[in-house]
C-alpha cells in the first residue's frame, strides 16, 4: 500500500485559505434553526416545542443572538408565537406573511428543483397556523423519506446516480392547511383566500413537477389551466416563467422568445429575468 503523497505546498496554501473563509456563521445557523423548528412542528409537536421555544441551556442561545436583520427573519413572528390558541389576528398576520414568503420562496422552489417541492412546502407551512396538526405528521415524513436513502452504508454510490428524489410540491400537504382548526371568525374571512391560493399553488406545482419530469406538454397544460382559472392570480409571474421554460423544453425557441419578451415587459423587475435570459441563450438553436 502506498500512502498518498502530501498536498503540494501551493494547493495546501490555497485550501487553507479557502478553509479560513468558512467562518462560523451563528446568525445563519440561528435563522435556519428557527425555520427548521417550524418545519419539524408539522411533523411532530413534541420536537417543535423543544426547538422553537427558547429552551434552557446552551442551545437556546442562537435564538437570542440572531440579529434583527438576519436572513429570513421575516418568517420569524409566527414561528415564535406560542403554539396553542392561534387567534384571528395571528391568522391574518400569518396569511399576510405567507404572501410575502411565497414571493420569496417561489424563486427557491423554481431554482432548487427537486428541493423546490420542499421549499414550496414551506410556503404552506407558513400559511398553516402554528399549532401543530397531528394529521400532518403522516404526510411530511413520506414527502421527505427519499432523502433517507443516504443513510445506508455506501450511501455515496446510489447518490451519485442522482436518482430522482421524487420530492414534489404536490406530495406536500397543501390541502391540509385548510383543515387546521382556527377561530371561526378568522377562518371565515381567510379560508376562501387560502383555498384559492392553495389551488393556484397546486397548479403551479403541477406545472413545475411536470417540467422536472421532462413532460413539458403537461407543464403547459397546467400553466394554461392556471391562466384560465386565475388570470389575475397571485402566482401569474411564476406561471409565465414556467411557460417560457416549458416552451423551451418543447424546442419552441421562437415561442419561448416571444413569451420571454412579453414577460420582460410585464415584469421588468422580475428576479426571473436573468435566469430566463440565460436559458434562452443556452438553448439558442444553431443557425
Amino acid at each position, binding site marked *: 500500500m502506498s500512502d498518498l503523497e502530501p498536498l503540494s505546498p501551493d*494547493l495546501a496554501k490555497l485550501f487553507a485559505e479557502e*478553509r479560513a473563509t*468558512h467562518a462560523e456563521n451563528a446568525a445563519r445557523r440561528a*435563522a435556519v434553526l428557527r425555520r427548521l423548528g417550524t418545519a419539524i412542528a408539522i411533523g411532530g409537536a413534541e420536537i417543535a416545542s423543544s426547538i422553537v421555544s427558547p429552551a434552557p441551556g446552551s442551545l437556546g442561545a442562537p435564538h437570542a443572538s440572531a440579529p434583527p436583520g438576519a436572513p429570513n427573519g421575516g418568517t420569524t413572528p409566527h414561528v415564535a408565537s406560542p403554539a396553542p390558541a392561534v387567534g384571528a389576528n395571528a391568522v391574518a398576520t400569518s396569511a399576510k406573511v405567507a404572501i410575502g414568503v411565497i414571493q420569496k420562496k417561489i424563486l427557491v422552489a423554481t431554482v432548487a428543483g427537486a428541493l423546490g417541492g420542499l421549499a414550496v412546502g414551506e410556503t404552506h407551512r407558513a400559511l398553516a397556523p402554528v399549532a401543530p396538526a397531528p394529521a400532518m405528521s403522516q404526510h411530511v415524513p413520506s414527502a421527505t423519506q427519499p432523502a433517507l436513502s443516504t443513510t445506508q*452504508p455506501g450511501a455515496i454510490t446510489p*447518490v451519485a446516480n*442522482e436518482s430522482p428524489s421524487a420530492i414534489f410540491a404536490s406530495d406536500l400537504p397543501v390541502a391540509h392547511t385548510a383543515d387546521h382548526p382556527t377561530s371561526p371568525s378568522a377562518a371565515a374571512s381567510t379560508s376562501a383566500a387560502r383555498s384559492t391560493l392553495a389551488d393556484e399553488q397546486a397548479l403551479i406545482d403541477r406545472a413545475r413537477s411536470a417540467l422536472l419530469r421532462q413532460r413539458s406538454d403537461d407543464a403547459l397544460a397546467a400553466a394554461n389551466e392556471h391562466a384560465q382559472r386565475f388570470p389575475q392570480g397571485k402566482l401569474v409571474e411564476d406561471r409565465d416563467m414556467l411557460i417560457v421554460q416549458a416552451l423551451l423544453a418543447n424546442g419552441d425557441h421562437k415561442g419561448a422568445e416571444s413569451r420571454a419578451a412579453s414577460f420582460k415587459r410585464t415584469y421588468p423587475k422580475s428576479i426571473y429575468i436573468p435566469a430566463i435570459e440565460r436559458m434562452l441563450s443556452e438553448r439558442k438553436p444553431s443557425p
Partner: protein
Amino acid sequence: METTFRELFEAHFDFVVRTLLRLGVREADVDDVAQELFLAVHKALDSWDRARSIRPWLFGFAHKFAANYRRLGWHRGRELEDDPISARIVDKLHARDVVLRVLDTMDFDQRALIVMHDLEEFSAVEIAAQLNVPVNTVYSRVRVGRQAFREALATLGETANV
C-alpha cells in the same frame, strides 16, 4: 432525541453549509438546502450508526442534496462566469472563489472526494468506509482528483498566483 438533534445541528451546521457550498450549492440557496437537509437528518437520526463518525454520514446527505440541487441545472456556474475570465478578475478573487470555481468545473464525484479528503481532511479510512471501497482506491482517486483540480486551476489562469 431532540437534544441529540439540536446538539448535532449546532455542532455540524457550519460543516454542512461549507460542504454544500463546496459541492456547488449557491450562497443564495444554501440556507434553504441546509434546512431541508437537516429535516432529512432529523427523520433519519435513529438510523445513524453511532459507532461511525458523524461527519462522513452527514457528508452523504450533503452529497445527495447537492446532487439534487444540480440536477435541475438551473444554476450553471457562478455569476462571475457570465463574464469572460480574465487574469485581472482572477487576481481579485478570494481563495474561496478560486477553489469553488475550480471545483465547479470538476466531475461531481471527484469534486466530492477532494472536498472530503483535502478540504475537510477526512481520513482515507473514513472515506473508504463511506464509499465502501478499499483505502488504496481512495488514494488513487484523490490523486486523480488533485490532478484534475490542478488542471482546472491552470485553465483558470490562476496557477501563477497561488
